[in-house]
């Protein structure tokens, strides 16, 4: 198989390896013999665990990506980030006064933003990170929430920021405040939470808990999926 494929050279923490062209960075590193015990998760671009940094041969730019979503290229210098250290403030969302400048209070470093846009350039989700930090400075929870909604918390923006801002924690706090204090409560969710509290599903949960793994697998395959015709909005 290898004979048919074009091989490329990648450098993992400085050491050269030949791997087939067409693999993701993550698979290429595994092909080279490494096993991930941190810095890998869903392998589908959703969990944000596989933040990676690299440089291309002859290119001055320091680049960032998700290892599971980016194709390995010839001459890449790779390093996997198992974790991005970032301070997260402790807060109780119930005791927050959203009228105050909460984001600046918990994360005052947002005010050091010089609008260099490095965060936006580093974002594998292609979010307007700088714009939501700027919205955070002026306390616009709604804008922060909508601009950061697709954040997967990989932390690359935070690793790259010259102002030491922890963008994804700031945005998470803003989304929590917006969800709790500003956005309307969805009716179907309220209804379902009420049903759960009243114990409507207790029996079913107990039944599932007693099942063996095999029985659970069978039940999962057999489960009924409610189909919603295209274009229709589900109402409960």
């Amino acid at each position, binding site marked *: 198989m290898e004979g048919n494929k074009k091989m490329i050279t990648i450098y993992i923490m400085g050491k050269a390896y030949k791997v087939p062209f067409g693999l993701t960075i993550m698979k290429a590193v595994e092909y080279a013999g490494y096993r991930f015990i941190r810095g890998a998760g869903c392998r589908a671009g959703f969990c944000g665990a596989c933040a990676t940094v690299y440089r291309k041969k002859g290119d001055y730019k320091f680049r960032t990506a998700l290892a599971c979503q980016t194709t390995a290229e010839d001459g890449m210098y790779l390093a996997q980030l198992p974790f991005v250290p970032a301070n997260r403030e402790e807060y109780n969302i119930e005791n927050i006064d959203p009228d105050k*400048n909460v984001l600046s209070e918990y994360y005052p470093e947002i*005010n050091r*933003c*010089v*609008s*260099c*846009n490095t965060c*936006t*350039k580093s974002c594998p989700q292609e979010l307007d990170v*700088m*714009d939501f930090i*700027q919205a955070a*400075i*002026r*306390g*616009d929870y709604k804008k922060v929430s909508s601009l950061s909604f697709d954040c997967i918390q990989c932390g690359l923006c935070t690793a790259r920021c010259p102002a030491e801002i922890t963008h994804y924690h700031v945005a998470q706090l803003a989304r929590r405040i917006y969800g709790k204090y500003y956005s309307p409560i969805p009716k179907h969710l309220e209804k379902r939470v009420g049903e759960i509290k009243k114990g409507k599903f207790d029996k079913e949960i107990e039944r599932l808990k007693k099942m063996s793994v095999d029985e659970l697998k069978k039940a999962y395959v057999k489960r009924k999926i409610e189909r919603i015709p295209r274009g229709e909005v589900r109402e409960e």
Partner: protein
Amino acid sequence: MKLPYFPGCTLKQTAKNFEKSAMASARRIGIELVELPRWNCCGAVSSLTSDDIMHHVAPIRDLVRVQQMNDDGILNNEYRLVVLCSMCFNVLKRSNMLVTKDAETLNKINEFMDTEPDYEGTVEVKHFLEILRDEIGFDKIKEKIKKPLHGLKVSPYYGCTLLRPREIGIDDPEAPTIMDDFIKSLEATPVDNPYKSLCCGSYHTVGNAEVVAHRTYKIIEGARRNGADVIITSCPLCAFNLDNRQELTKKLHPDFEYMPILYFTQLMALAFGEEKEAGFDENFVNPVPLLEEKKLLKKVVSRGE
């Protein structure tokens, strides 16, 4: 007249009444202020170090947004960017002047902002007061007001950033008259203050509030000695220092008496009959009793303090 408008962070937070009153007043004189769809903090302080180009990136990025509004058809060949906050005005205009005079610096900034269109130096940064004076004309404003502010003695406070440095300022830094003329256009009486362009203490308010409080005393007493009822300003930081620091000023100077501090646009909104948009309830020293006494506001019986 549709003009691009840069609010700045403070006008979205502690100076909402500045923006609200300006918007309402602008409508009355046929100006539509269109907020930039995307904008970032101006930088709040202009860097004076010649090799510190990084701090000019933020203001230049905002100027690029004005170009984009024209490119996107939101504006039709309109490059006059209106700013209300004196500090933002000063920072944006200074950076604009720097890059339009220094092609190398502009090139460096454009190279750095590789995800943005190049800034072409086309934007003119204008303070709202300049638009009132030069585009509308104070005599036109006088014709359009609904409620002349007869009997109200108003002392203008210019501060620093509206006047200095000379090449940035909107009026003579030693003997400014633009706010005095503005006050006359509302048919109020301008009152001079020898300390009208004395620095309020600026950011010392964060770490050394007493420095500010002593200046607040000097500035407000200067206006009062000449008979002023109220002071107007165009800077949210000056407004905070002159207004919110009066409590500390009173502690340090027991003979001190409170005086309302208004944004010039609040006075304008009042004269246009837009008092609901003036946002007087957001001022620290409540201006309502004074305005009621001067018969410029109707007394509302159950107004809580």
